[in-house]
C-alpha cells in the first residue's frame, strides 16, 4: 500500500534529493509514491504549497521563514524538518569586472575581491551608474549571502549597489545584456553563464559562510502534523538519497537522472560538475576542484539546526529594515524541526545531534560533537569575516550591524 505525496520543485541541482529518492525507489521502499511538480518561480512553488496543490516543496530556506511571518503572503506557519543541502551557489560577475577584482583561473579571497570591488562600486556610484546584482529571490539565501559579503566589505546594499530579482534561467541573459553586473545563483546557472561567455565565477557562497543553509523541505505545519508518519517516511527516503548523492560511484547516474527533461532539462556535463564540486570559472579555462561546493550529507548536513533559521531571521530583519520582535523569533525557531528529523531517523545509523542549536561560525577548526549514537566531527563552519552568531543573543548580534553602514 503506497501513499501519494507530492513535492514542488524548481529545476536546480539542489532539488536532487527528492528526485533521487523517487527515481532510485527509496521513497517507494518507505511506502510513498512521490509526485514531483516542476515550476519556474518560487512564487508558484509557494502558492501550490499554500493552497494544497502540493504536500511539500523544495524551497529556499528564508522563504519558509518569511511565509511563516506573513511577509509577502498572508502568514501561514510552515515547517522544515529536513535540510536539502548547504551552499552550492556562486557569485558570477561580468567578465570584464571579474578581471579587475579577482585572480585569473582561481576563486578569489572574499576579503580581497570585496576590497577591489568596493573601489569600482564607489566609482560607479559616483558616476551615477551603480553596480547592479541579480539574486533569485528577495527571500533567498543567495540574497542574504551576497548582502552579508558586500556589507562585510564596506559596500552597502541598496545604497552603494543595487540588488534586484532575476529568475535563474534569465541570469545569463541579464549578464549578457548588461542588465546586471553580477549574479548570485545556484547551479547549473553560473555554469550556463560561463559557457555562454557571459560571465566569470569569482566566489562560491561556501566561501562566505562555510556551512550556509540553502534549500529545505518545506510543508504546511498542519500537513506535517496530520501526515506525520508519511513525513517521517519521506525524511528517511531523503536521507538515503543524500547518502547516495555523495557516493562517487553514483555520480554519473545521478547527473543523468537530474538532466532528464522532466527534471532539470539541462546539460548533463554542467550538472556533473556541480555534483562533483568542480567549477569552470571562465570560458576556455580549466576545471577547478572546490571541495564541499555543495554540501549534502556529511556532518549531519540535513539536520535542521534551529540556529540556522535564527541566523536567516537576523538577515531578514537587517535587509527588510524591520525591528527585532521576540514573538517572531519564537515563530521562526519553530519553522526548523530537529525533533521531527530525530524522530524519523531514530534507529538508523544517521547521526542525530543531541543539541538543536549551535553557535554558528564558531568553528575555525574541526570540532567533535555528541550525537545520540556517539561522536561526529564538525569541520570549519566560519563566516568569511570571522563573526560569530550566538542564537541566544540575536538582538546583540543585530546591534553589531549599524543598518546605515
Amino acid at each position, binding site marked *: 500500500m503506497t501513499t501519494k505525496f507530492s513535492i514542488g520543485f524548481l529545476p536546480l541541482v539542489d532539488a536532487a534529493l527528492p528526485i533521487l529518492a523517487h527515481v532510485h525507489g527509496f521513497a517507494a521502499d518507505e511506502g510513498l509514491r512521490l509526485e514531483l511538480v516542476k515550476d*519556474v*518561480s518560487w512564487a*508558484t512553488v509557494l502558492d501550490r504549497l499554500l493552497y494544497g496543490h502540493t504536500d511539500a516543496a523544495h524551497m529556499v530556506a528564508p522563504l519558509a521563514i518569511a511565509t511563516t511571518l506573513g511577509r509577502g*503572503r498572508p502568514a501561514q506557519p510552515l515547517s522544515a524538518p529536513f535540510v536539502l543541502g548547504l551552499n552550492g551557489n556562486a557569485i558570477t560577475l561580468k567578465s570584464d569586472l571579474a578581471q579587475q577584482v579577482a585572480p585569473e583561473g582561481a576563486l578569489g579571497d572574499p576579503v580581497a575581491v570585496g576590497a577591489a570591488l568596493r573601489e569600482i562600486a564607489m566609482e560607479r556610484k559616483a558616476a551615477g551608474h551603480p553596480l547592479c546584482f541579480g539574486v533569485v529571490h528577495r527571500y533567498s539565501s543567495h540574497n542574504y549571502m551576497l548582502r552579508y559579503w558586500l556589507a562585510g566589505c564596506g559596500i552597502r546594499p541598496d545604497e552603494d549597489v543595487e540588488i*534586484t*530579482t532575476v529568475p535563474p534561467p534569465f541570469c545569463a541573459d541579464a549578464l549578457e545584456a548588461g542588465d546586471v553586473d553580477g549574479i548570485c545563483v545556484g547551479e547549473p546557472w553560473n555554469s550556463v553563464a560561463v559557457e555562454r561567455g557571459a560571465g566569470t565565477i569569482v566566489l562560491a557562497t561556501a566561501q562566505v559562510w562555510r556551512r550556509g543553509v540553502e534549500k529545505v523541505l518545506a510543508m504546511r505545519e498542519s500537513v506535517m502534523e496530520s501526515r506525520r508518519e508519511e513525513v517521517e517516511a519521506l525524511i528517511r527516503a531523503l536521507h538515503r538519497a543524500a547518502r547516495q548523492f555523495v557516493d562517487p560511484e553514483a555520480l554519473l547516474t545521478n547527473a543523468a537522472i537530474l538532466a532528464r527533461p522532466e527534471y532539470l532539462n539541462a546539460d548533463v556535463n554542467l550538472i556533473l560538475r556541480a555534483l562533483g564540486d568542480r567549477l569552470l570559472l571562465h570560458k576556455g579555462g580549466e576545471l577547478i576542484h572546490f571541495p564541499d561546493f555543495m554540501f549534502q550529507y556529511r556532518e549531519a548536513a540535513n539536520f535542521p539546526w534551529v540556529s540556522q533559521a535564527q541566523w536567516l531571521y537576523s538577515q531578514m530583519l537587517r535587509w527588510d529594515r524591520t525591528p527585532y520582535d521576540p514573538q517572531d523569533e519564537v515563530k521562526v525557531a519553530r519553522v526548523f524541526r530537529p525533533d521531527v528529523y530525530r524522530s524519523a531517523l531514530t534507529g538508523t545509523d544517521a547521526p542525530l545531534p543531541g543539541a538543536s542549536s549551535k553557535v554558528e561560525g564558531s568553528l575555525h577548526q574541526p570540532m567533535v560533537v555528541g550525537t545520540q549514537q556517539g561522536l561526529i566531527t564538525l569541520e570549519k563552519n566560519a563566516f568569511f569575516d570571522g563573526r560569530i552568531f550566538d542564537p541566544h543573543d540575536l538582538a546583540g548580534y543585530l546591534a553589531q550591524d549599524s543598518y546605515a553602514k
Partner: protein
Amino acid sequence: MRIAIIDESAVRASVMQEGLAQLGDCEIFVITERRGLVRRISEIDADIVLMDLGNPSRDVLEEYFAVSRVLARPIAMFVDDSDEESIGASIDAGVSAYVVDGFAPHRIRSILDLAIRRFHAFSRLQTELSVAQSKLAERESVDKAKRILMQTRGLGEPEAYAELRKTAMNQGKRIAEIADAVVTAHKLIGGAA
C-alpha cells in the same frame, strides 16, 4: 479601472483581453515582453495585475510589489486572504492576481472569475488545437504511405489503403503508426518521400 495582463503567450493574453473587454469600464494593458517588465508595470499603474503561474518573472514582479509597498498605492498579494475559494480556483486555472489594497472586493471577484474562465477556455482551445494538429499530421502520413504503395506495388488508392488497414489490424496497431513505418522504411531505402 486599469488591468494589466502579463503573459509571454501573446495568444493567451489576447484571449484574456477579449474576455475582460466585456466588462466595459476597463482599460486593459497587455505585456508580453520579459525585459523592462517592472518599468512597464510601474508606468501602467494598474489596479489589478493578472499573470500566468508558469511565468518565471512572477518573483520579479513580487519583489517590485514588496518594494513599492511603501508607495502610495500598496499592492496586496492575490485577492484577499479571506477569499480562499477564489485563490484556489485561480491557482487551478493557472493565473495569479495582484490587487491594489482597498479595491472593491465584489469587483475583484467578478474580474477574477472572468479571468479564470478565459484561462480555462484557452487551455481547452490548446488541447483542441493539438488534437487537430496531430490528426492532420496523421492524415498526411497516411497519404504519403498510400502514394508509396501505389508507386512501388502498382496498387490503386483503395487497395493501398486496404493494405495499410489490414496490416494495422494484424499487428494490433493504428493505421497512422503503420503509415509512419512505411514512410520511414521508404526513406531509409532511398525513396523520395
